[in-house]
């Protein structure tokens, strides 16, 4: 039995926004799951990369933006090099993060990290985390 899903105007706008920001044609995803099976962070995620794609297509904005997955993606590009549609999920995850970060929200506050830990971290870790996880 087929199930009919009605896409609301808001859902369509969300998909458009993410396609525009990421520059990726998300609707061309064929749900093969290669991205999820190639992802080094998938065990830490609540939504698998392929689910992020299908849920973005369906405009399930709240579920995605509240997910842990978009923040735990490490931008490693493994999914991108393997996707048969050459989709770049790192860009999609970045676009999704930007939707949140551009409401003047930060995901992390560097000041919350104990000083001895900060002193241990290499500079590139701190700069990269600030770029990906703060506005």
């Amino acid at each position, binding site marked *: 039995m087929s199930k009919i899903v009605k896409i609301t105007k808001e859902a369509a706008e969300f998909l458009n926004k993410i396609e*525009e*920001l*990421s*520059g990726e044609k998300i609707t061309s995803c064929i749900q093969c799951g290669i991205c999820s099976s190639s992802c*080094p*962070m998938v*065990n*830490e995620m609540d939504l698998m990369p392929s689910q992020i794609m299908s849920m973005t297509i369906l405009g399930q904005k709240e579920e995605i933006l509240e997910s842990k997955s978009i*923040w*735990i993606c*490490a*931008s*490693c*590009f*493994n999914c*991108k*090099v393997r996707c048969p549609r050459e989709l*770049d999920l*790192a*860009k999609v995850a*970045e*676009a999704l993060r*930007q939707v949140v970060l551009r409401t003047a929200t930060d*995901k*992390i506050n*560097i000041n919350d*990290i104990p000083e001895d*830990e900060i002193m*241990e*971290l*290499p*500079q*590139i*870790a*701190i*700069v*990269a*985390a600030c*770029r*990906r*996880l703060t506005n």
Partner: protein
Amino acid sequence: MTMKLPYYPGCTLKTKAKNFESSALEVAKSLDIELIELPRWNCCGVVSSIVSDNLIEHLAPIRNLIRVQEMNEHGLVENENRLVALCSMCFNVLKRSNLRVKENPDDMQTINDFMYKEEDYEGKVEVIHLLEILRDMGFDKVKEKVKKDISSLTIAPYYGCMLLRPKSIAIDNTEDPKIEKDLMMALGARTVENPFRKMCCGGHQTVQDKYAVARNTHTIINGARKAGADMMITSCPLCAFNLDNRQKLVKEAHPEFEHMPVLYFTQVMALAFGIDEKYMGFEDNYIDPRPLLREKGLLKAVSHKE
């Protein structure tokens, strides 16, 4: 004749990864390569801007490329458009921004207009990793410089992400890289293949969720261990931190876990070239490789700064 090349160090090689820089500069010298530090370089930004509407994050990398033009104009190098990076992250971001403006003349124009106090970037610089320089000159040239037999070492190369992905910046085959293995073999070491050699260590997630990164570290080090390695090599100070320092957390969670030293590829080169130990900076590695190297008879009993 000495090959003089513009060189971009980046922030971490001046602070947490001084051992990477000092070993690389000495190794290069032995091979008649002079890496000349880019005057007035700035932080590259570490990660490439990957949303379509954010051009501003490409300014920092492009400004560094303008410095290469200036080095040529001021005679610091002669007709040399290659910019050498050592840190994989810097390499990735500089190369990606360079490609972005080369492929999009409008973006190049916007960036040049924005940085109106700088000379225009002409799009001629080529960002290149030291590993590529070594491969291009021929690993047999590297072999000629070997003074110490390191065949007792079994090394698992680790590539991570930033040398290989996306494909547009890859220095080797994305799925089956060999460049580090070929280099280690030229040095006379034994190599083994870690099935997780291209798996991401978790990168900057080490700031947000160090335990998630430690779980990746555990997988990657175990992969190398099972393959029979004594040590791993890398060219990325962030991978180095995650694979080396985060072993502390792995050990806390799994007391039976055995530590494994993680070295920069240039530290192994320096060892094989018989370079003074002070340039290898082993005291800055979290898991000290010296007990292992002594056991193999590759280091003197008491060494520098211990």
